[in-house]
């Protein structure tokens, strides 16, 4: 996904990545999250991405000359350093021991039911805050996408009226052929 030039190919690789993550969720005893991951990410978000890519047009086939000459190796070096540091932190913090899960007790009566029970009782306030956040984002998208109507000044109205009186502008709907 990172190295491919074509944006559509990158989006398709991202879909593959989403499906792999969904399988990992299934391995982690989260079948509801598996379904949501496939439906929302691989379904909705990737359709959105592909739609925007198709709408904006892809500069495919024309390899753009990269002008980020210094940033690109620097990014790789910094990312490698970051992941090494992360591995050390994981090894120091968590360790590699397998711990017995008790998620089966929490999943009694179905994973979806358990998620709903927790979501609407214990975490109800964060859930509502998230919904308000989504509402704010929707309103902001509408405000940003809304084009400002062209304002008509009084001088333009007067000028148009003057032209109309002088007979320079045809009057439609007044009957009579010009």
């Amino acid at each position: 996904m990172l190295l491919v030039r074509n944006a559509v190919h990158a989006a398709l690789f991202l879909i593959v990545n989403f499906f792999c993550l969904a399988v990992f969720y299934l391995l982690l005893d989260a079948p509801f999250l598996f379904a949501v991951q496939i439906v929302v990410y691989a379904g909705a978000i990737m359709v959105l991405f592909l739609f925007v890519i198709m709408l904006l047009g892809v500069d495919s086939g024309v390899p753009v000359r990269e002008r980020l000459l210094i940033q690109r190796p620097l990014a790789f070096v910094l990312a490698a350093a970051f992941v090494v540091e992360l591995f050390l932190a994981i090894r120091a913090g968590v360790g590699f021991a397998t711990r017995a899960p008790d998620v089966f007790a929490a999943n009694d009566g179905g994973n979806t039911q358990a998620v709903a029970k927790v979501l609407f009782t214990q975490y109800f306030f964060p859930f509502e805050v998230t919904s308000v956040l989504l509402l704010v984002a929707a309103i902001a998208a509408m405000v940003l996408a809304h084009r400002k109507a062209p304002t008509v000044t009084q001088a333009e109205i007067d000028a148009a009226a003057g032209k109309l009186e002088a007979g320079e502008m045809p009057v439609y709907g007044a009957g009579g052929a010009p």
Partner: protein
Amino acid sequence: VRTPIAFYLMLSGILFMLGTVGVLTRKNALLIFMSVELQLNAVNLALVARGCTTT
């Protein structure tokens, strides 16, 4: 046989690193956004792996 949580965390770290590289190297805004989505998914995987196992 359960996979240790550390492997999931390492995979999450690798995915996050790939997303970071994508954010830093890509120039198109849409591709940067896709890399950010990759980072969000990596964090999601870490959270799920953490929630699956108990301390």
